[in-house]
């Protein structure tokens, strides 16, 4: 009887548009060139449009057939798959959930990069699934596991993730085919051959990039970052105010949360701060890296900004700004001027100059209407946290995290601020008996949705 496995079963799990079909075609070509009878199936359909899909191949050595018709399965049976390929980390998890990865038989080759599902991306705060759990499950379920970020590797070689994956499959030795055969299949396809060969080679040598874990800052480092940021935001005195506001907080855990939240709140993003950020030299470099502009190419940047009448009033001296913001003739006459968004071409000298001037106006920030409102909010919040720190540190920590709700600009910022205020009022009313537990529940409910219905439900139930 000819040596080598009687049959090889391969399942590829991918997202629609990732090139799973191309990968299946390459593997089919490799098998057939190596004298195997190959059957491949797929389930393309409307669910594939950005949804997850599966390709399944079975290979039988032709010399085993002696021109009889092999009866091959059209779909993978649990525990019956030799190689499972996952073109994204969560799809490796899905393969395990479908029982396709067997401890005694299956090699799992997975790319660890993430393409977030809509549920993860649209969460108000952080809805990203825990990739570590999937990797742990992969190690537990697979006979052999090869997992690294093939998308980033492919991008670095201007190639496709499917090409890098083919390299990783070749290197995994899960298939009895030489590297040469895989490369021949890419050449035979005649599509973007050079790029795909480059991606293949990178995938073949694929050394898992060291997972760069961002170390969490110590409290001192947070305070230093706060001082640096607020000096840049306004001046040394403002940074000094930040330090003095931290004095009353002695408990290390409370101080850490307050230091972080206070630094962010005191550097709220008004029109002047945005102008300052948009015209920093470091910002242009970051953009050019992000968009992958090649050398010798010229880049024009147009910012989408929409300062409204409210933002104008925020920048005016407090009393004047307050009066104009309330309404009256000037608002009716001038507000329509702010109705349309602005296309600000920051790579043009005139707009760049305008923004630099706007940024320079930050010197007068202390006198503005917005500063008055934000400062009042900060003072009230600090007092509440200090009050809670006396008797219930856990509650103080939860209170210190509440400013996290105030995010974004315009209506989004206003909604965040109203959620924050609602929780603060609930805290005043509830007093200190059910402190931390109540605040934690309210804060999480506030982050559940955009318009605050979950928070309202929670407030009613705990009133």
């Amino acid at each position, binding site marked *: 009887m000819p040596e080598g496995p009687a049959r090889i079963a391969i399942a590829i799990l991918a997202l629609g548009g990732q090139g799973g079909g191309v990968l299946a075609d390459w593997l089919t070509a490799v098998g057939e060139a190596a004298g195997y009878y190959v059957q491949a199936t797929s389930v393309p359909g409307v669910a594939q449009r950005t949804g997850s899909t599966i390709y399944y191949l079975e290979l039988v050595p032709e010399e085993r057939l002696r021109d009889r018709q092999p009866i091959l399965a059209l779909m993978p049976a649990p525990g019956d798959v030799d190689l499972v390929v996952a073109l994204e980390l969560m799809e490796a998890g899905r393969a395990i959930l479908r029982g396709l990865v067997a401890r005694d038989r299956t090699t799992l080759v997975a790319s660890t990069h993430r*393409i977030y599902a809509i549920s993860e991306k649209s969460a108000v705060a952080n809805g990203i699934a825990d990739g570590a759990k999937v990797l742990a499950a992969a190690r537990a379920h697979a006979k052999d596991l090869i997992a690294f970020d093939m998308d980033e590797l492919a991008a670095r070689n201007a190639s496709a993730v499917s090409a890098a994956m083919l390299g990783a499959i070749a290197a995994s030795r899960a298939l009895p085919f030489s590297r040469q055969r895989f490369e021949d299949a890419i050449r035979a396809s005649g599509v973007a051959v050079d790029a795909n060969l480059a991606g293949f080679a990178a995938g073949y040598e694929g050394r898992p990039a060291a997972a760069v874990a961002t170390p969490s800052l110590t409290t001192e480092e947070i305070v230093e970052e706060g001082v640096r940021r607020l000096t840049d935001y306004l001046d040394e005195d403002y940074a000094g105010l930040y330090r003095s506001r931290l004095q009353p907080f002695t408990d290390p855990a409370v101080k850490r949360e307050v230091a972080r939240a206070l630094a962010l709140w005191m550097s709220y993003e008004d029109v002047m701060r945005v102008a300052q950020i948009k015209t920093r030299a470091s910002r242009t470099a970051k953009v050019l890296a992000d968009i992958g502009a090649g050398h010798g190419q010229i880049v024009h940047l147009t910012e989408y900004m929409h300062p409204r009448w409210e933002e104008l009033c925020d920048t005016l001296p407090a009393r004047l700004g307050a009066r104009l913001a309330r309404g009256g003739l000037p608002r009716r006459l001038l507000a329509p001027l702010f109705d349309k968004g602005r296309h600000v071409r920051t790579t043009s000298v005139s707009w760049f100059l305008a923004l630099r001037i706007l940024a320079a106006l930050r010197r007068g920030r202390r006198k503005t209407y917005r500063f008055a409102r934000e400062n009042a909010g900060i003072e009230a919040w600090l007092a509440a946290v200090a009050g809670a720190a006396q008797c219930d540190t856990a509650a103080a920590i939860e209170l210190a995290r509440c400013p996290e709700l105030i995010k974004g600009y*315009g209506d989004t910022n206003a909604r965040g601020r109203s959620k924050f205020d609602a929780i603060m009022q609930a805290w005043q009313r509830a007093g200190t008996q059910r402190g931390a537990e109540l605040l934690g529940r309210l804060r999480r409910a506030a982050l559940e949705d955009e318009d605050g219905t979950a928070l309202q439900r929670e407030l009613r139930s705990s009133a």
Partner: protein
Amino acid sequence: MAERSFRKEVEQLRIGAGREFRGEGILAVTKALLQSGVAYVGGYQGAPISHLMDVFADADDLLKELGVHFEASASEAAAAAMCAASVNYPLRGAVAWKSVVGTNVASDALSNVASGGVTGGVLVIVGEDYGEGSSIMQERTHAFAMKSQIWLLDPRPNLPSIVEAVEKGFELSEASNTPVMIELRVRACHLHGRFRAKDNVRPRFTVQDALANPVRDTERIVLPPANFLHEREKIEQRWPAAVRFVREHKLNERFGPEQGDIGIVVQGGLFNTLNRALELMDLSDAFGDAKIPLLVLNVTYPIVPEEVREFCSGKRAVLLVEEGQPEFIEHELNTILRRADIQTRLIGKEVFPRAGEYTAQVLMDGLGRFLSAWTSRPEPPRPPAPDAALAAEVPQRPAGFCTGCPERPLFTALKLAQRDLGEHHVSADIGCHLFSILPPFHIGNTTVGYGLGAAGASAFRRHDGKRPIAIMGDGGFWHNGLTSGIGNAVFNRDDSLTIVVDNGYSAATGGQDLLSSAGDGGARSTRHAIETAVRGIGVGWVRTIDNTYDLRRMRDAVKDALTTDGRGPKVLVARSECMLNKQRRLRPRFDKSAREGRRVVRTRFGVDADTCTGDHACIRLSGCPSLTVRPNPDPLKSDPVAHVDNSCVGCGLCGEVSHTEVLCPSFYKAEIVVNPNWLERLVAGVKQRLLGLLHRA
């Protein structure tokens, strides 16, 4: 033209006798049709048979050479009606569509053709969209076949068996004057395999010959008294003829030992999965040498009573593997056994689930229960339950609009309009636009079928309150929506808004051309504007918006239509090219020009991580795959920031959303000039130095 070109596959259709065809199941069917001397082919695209339509659409010259007439039918009803050509003339015809939805649309014509019967063979190729990958209600084509007495083939899922089923299907149809359906499940359609080809055959009798000497026979037309004659013919002549043909040509197959204490009957299409389940239980091998007698029904209607009696008698119990419900075959077999007083027990849905796809695991479970009841084999251990903690972590992946899709801005505009005017009832349709019912848009209360979006809103008579909104794609519009929806609204003076999404293709099924496609249709006539048809049928308020990405204009047009006081139906045509097909067209040209040093501009959008505060309101209004999130670079912040990755095609919606909804100042448009001319380089150099100075100031 279709999402991908099928030129390469068309060449495979030319290969002659003895050479090996390699490709997928649905294309093997296409080759088998040409080998069977088919005279005309029609159909309507829809997974999983779209590729059959695509490859014929790309094979005009080959079809001309063979004298085969091909039509991309306006609908499945039109395709089924085409089979009238086989009633009086010896013309072999084939039509294809997605089932059961296509069969639903075609059922009127099918009933008529099946009643009068056919002279030339008629083959209906049905893509049974059931189980994984399916997007429709889970029903069985089997019910239709029995209702109109149309024979049903369900061949074993490998290319040689499928090709033989096509050839034998024509013969069965001609032997019994009855149309024949061949049912291919999703994976069988998309199954890469091989078969030994034969030469293509020119139809002996062509559509031109029929036109040259027309034949008519009143007895073939469904009108009294002939309609009553047809029913008797079906029972007294066509049925016995079919049963005799199936038996004599041994269309059903036997595997495993001749005799046995137990046996298994299985639909042909499930044979491979059954064999693998048996193999994993050491009861068969890779070539189907099963240890239990198997009767494989490649013809599931009509059932051949003698075969059933022969197979079941002498056995204590027989297992029936029949996917889906109601279990028509189980009822038929029980009736045959009861009438023949054969005591063999028939076990079917007792051990198998009545609903859901029959995967290998489902078959192993059922087999285990049957064998433990009727043999000494112990019941196999239950498969381990999936890891609940892992299941909680792996997110669902609902379908969504592609990157830069022109339909996304329409639903962002609808979401914004409803923020001002309140929630409206929205009757949705079938197509990519149906993704609006999923996150992040959640727009659409019902869908009742392809092109039926407008008709789905016709019950809502508006007195004061809000107008009902209906969504319809250009595919559904030409398929039937123009009359069932728009014409119906005009005639009944409905006061509703219908939004026709005109992306230039039947996009969801792979981007086939249609009447209003902008490109040159080649063998087919295109560039017929939807607005013209809508005005022609009597709608007064009609507006076409040619750039759906202009969010403000889209939102205002929707609000206008919903608030204008004129009564009667309003139609808003949202027209921009499907981005998937647009990129397929433009991308190669762009790359080529860039390589050859010509000046081209790539547009791409981005998010400024320093000003983004991680609220993701922009994502909730867009959902574009290229608008994603990444860890926050700011050490003090924890929530991920929005980020546009390199798949962005520069459609501009995210920028428009942040403008119209005043979300944040983080979005920027980057225009990257590739191969700039010398003047641009000069200006850029000067600006560079000047901005450098300003940075330091």
